[in-house]
């Protein structure tokens, strides 16, 4: 595989590269585009900043500060090498619900410029590529196939509650799965270790004439092409558009000040315990279902969401089987099987003996069972509202290639807080009414949420798609408004985060963009 990819650090690459289509970034979107385009479009290049494995100095190009709520280390929140973040993607897949495409003006949430019927065929293709059985998104179908009792599903018993399934794909490592295929495509050249740092527009500003790319060894390469596709990710796409400001001080595609704004994630907060009654269905036990390769959560129907006036919400039930400390003690004992009387192991043994019923439950759970836990920790997860104040900002600091770093101002707004609060209230009220458990409620105050909010590495929304130039950065075909040959791929184009896991949606949108590029002959 390696010898058919071109390492930009070597003499194989000179001062310029010319192509018909230049795809920047070899992650889920970029690899999908390359696979789709290269068989029929001549002379496609795929430009990847990293090599074939994780590398500290390349990864450090992602350095940036968290200015807002506590977020993940930006340096490692995406992977900067061939295959991109699919190199550690968990494989959770789901499509958007119909409500995700609708505007929700009361919540200040814009509509997508098309509805679910437009994306449906591409989602079907994406699901097939990921090895998913489309019918299995229906919980009853999936669970009865696994021999679970589907009468236990909460959907019919309650009003407004709905079980939504994530399927877990095993075809997640794009570099391994598609690397050889890409290497064999005659129309495709893949460049490694080549980082795009600047986009140049023509004088009129209506065309990208070239992009500048650099290597960490100090080489500068100019790439010219008829069509460019930015397929980095939501921080890097915005950063490149903002930093390419030689013609316009606010960057490219930023006439209406949307670039870098509306940074969204699927945020979760833990709080509230539930002591289950004997009728609480074990199929909502997170670890039990995970052991079956499925994920199901309790969320709300579209009408219920509208009535409550909240964003997408779902609740995960994380079982606690034993007293604190028993689980790690068991794990350490297992690790020290050959020195069972190491004094520290004696402590661990004492810990396990102090809660034998709990230890037994842990063992049964590890063996694939679903024992009744002491209690469940509730994990509340929401789609974040598109909030203009939650955004990417260019820093004064520069990376090793001289480019300005991107900082993240991650913020939640009142709609987010409200969604957490009302979501939890509804779950507590409905499950109590059904006699499924007793709750020890933790009030989800704004401060509590700010303190405990955890992002999910889903970077969404910084170059959002809209029907009109005034409302977004890219048009419904993912082309940057007022620039004829610059497209953006990936979750940065999503106007809302939606219920879905983003990767399957990214692939679906990339398939759609590939079709558009082939039809419009943009490559010629």
């Amino acid at each position, binding site marked *: 595989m390696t010898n058919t990819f071109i390492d930009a650090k070597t003499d194989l690459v000179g001062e310029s590269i010319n192509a018909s289509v230049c795809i920047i970034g070899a992650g889920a979107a970029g690899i999908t585009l390359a696979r789709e385009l290269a068989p029929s479009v001549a002379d496609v290049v795929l430009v990847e900043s990293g090599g074939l*494995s*994780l*590398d*500290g*100095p390349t*990864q*450090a190009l*992602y*350095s940036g500060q968290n200015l807002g709520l*506590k*977020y*993940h*280390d*930006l*340096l*490692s*929140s995406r*992977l900067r090498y061939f295959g991109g973040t699919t*190199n*550690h993607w968990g494989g959770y897949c789901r499509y958007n619900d119909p409500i995700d495409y609708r505007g929700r003006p009361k919540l200040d949430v814009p509509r997508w410029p098309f509805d679910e019927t437009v994306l449906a065929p591409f989602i079907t293709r994406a699901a097939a590529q990921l090895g998913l059985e489309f019918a299995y998104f229906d919980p009853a179908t999936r669970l009865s196939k696994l021999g679970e009792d589907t009468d236990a599903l909460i959907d019919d018993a309650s009003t407004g509650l709905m079980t939504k399934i994530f399927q877990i794909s095993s075809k997640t490592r794009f570099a391994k799965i598609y690397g050889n295929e890409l290497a064999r495509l005659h129309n495709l050249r893949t460049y490694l270790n080549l980082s795009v740092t600047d986009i140049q527009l023509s004088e009129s500003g209506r065309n990208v004439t070239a992009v500048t790319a650099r290597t960490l060894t100090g080489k500068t390469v100019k790439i010219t092409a008829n069509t460019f596709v930015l397929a980095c990710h939501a921080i890097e796409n915005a950063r490149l558009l903002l930093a390419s400001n030689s013609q316009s001080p606010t960057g490219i595609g930023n006439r209406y000040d949307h670039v870098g704004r509306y940074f969204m994630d699927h945020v979760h907060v833990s709080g509230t315990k539930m002591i289950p009654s004997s009728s609480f269905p074990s199929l909502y036990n997170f670890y039990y279902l995970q052991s079956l390769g499925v994920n199901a959560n309790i969320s709300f129907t579209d009408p219920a969401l509208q009535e409550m006036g909240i964003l997408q919400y779902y609740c995960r039930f994380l079982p606690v089987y034993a007293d604190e*400390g028993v689980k*790690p003690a068991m*794990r*350490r004992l297992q*690790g020290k099987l050959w*020195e*069972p*009387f*190491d*004094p520290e192991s*004696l402590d661990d043994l004492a810990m396990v003996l102090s809660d034998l019923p709990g230890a037994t439950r842990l063992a049964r759970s590890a063996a694939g069972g679903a024992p009744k836990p002491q209690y469940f920790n509730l994990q509340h997860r929401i789609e974040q509202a598109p909030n203009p104040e939650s955004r990417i900002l260019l820093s004064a600091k520069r990376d090793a290639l001289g480019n300005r770093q991107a900082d993240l101002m991650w913020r939640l707004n009142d709609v987010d807080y409200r969604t957490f609060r009302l979501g939890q209230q509804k779950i507590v009220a409905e499950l109590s009414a059904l006699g499924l458990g007793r709750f020890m409620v933790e009030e989800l105050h704004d401060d509590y949420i700010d303190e405990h909010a*955890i992002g999910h*590495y889903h970077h969404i929304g910084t170059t959002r798609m809209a029907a009109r130039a005034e409302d977004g950065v890219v048009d419904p075909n993912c082309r940057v408004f007022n620039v004829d040959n610059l497209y953006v791929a990936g979750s940065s184009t999503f106007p809302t985060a939606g219920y879905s896991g983003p990767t399957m949606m990214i692939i679906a949108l990339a398939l759609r963009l590939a079709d558009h590029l082939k039809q419009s002959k943009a490559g010629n």
Partner: protein
Amino acid sequence: MVRIAYMAAAITIPPLASIAWRGFSLLNAFVALIWLAALLAFFFFAVAYGILLHGLATLFAFVIILRHRRPGNEDHKFTPRRLIDYAIGLYLILSTSLTGSLLWYGINAPNGEPADNAAVERGSKIFVTSCHACHGTNNELAPSLDGIVGKEVAANPSFDYSAALRGKEGVWTENTLSRFLLAPDQFSPGTKMAISPLTADEARDVIAFLRSGR
């Protein structure tokens, strides 16, 4: 000081008591020897080996006694008094095992102050935002951090460590881990670990979390 006195007492009192009870004999000398061997095993190997050694030696001692029994040799008959003697001998041997392990523990446990729960809690949050993406469960990107404090550097045979890290000797200590986290690229030039350098406080907290084994 108290601990040393206790140690000395633990080492000497049981064999002396045994000799006082039975008078000096080959068997008593043998018991004292086992004692020493077991103590050495406690201190220099795992306690498990010490106890194993005791078990074997005890068995051995009984075999000798049984083989010594000859008709007419009154000295080796199992009189009640004699059974009590053996029981006491056995008790002394086992109590040594216990004393040994307690001693070992007394010496080794104090080096870790009891875990600072607040630091562990803060550390767990840093772990989520800075480490989990690569070091999380079921992740092939980076080696597991289970029991990393005290584990040999670059110990996972299936992970392709950077040359610099592979070249390092010894085990991870709080000190070396802290240096690595404060300045990854200085500690191990060309490292594959992608992390924004932590502050000294953050490093201390995350190490406390890693030590806690949670």
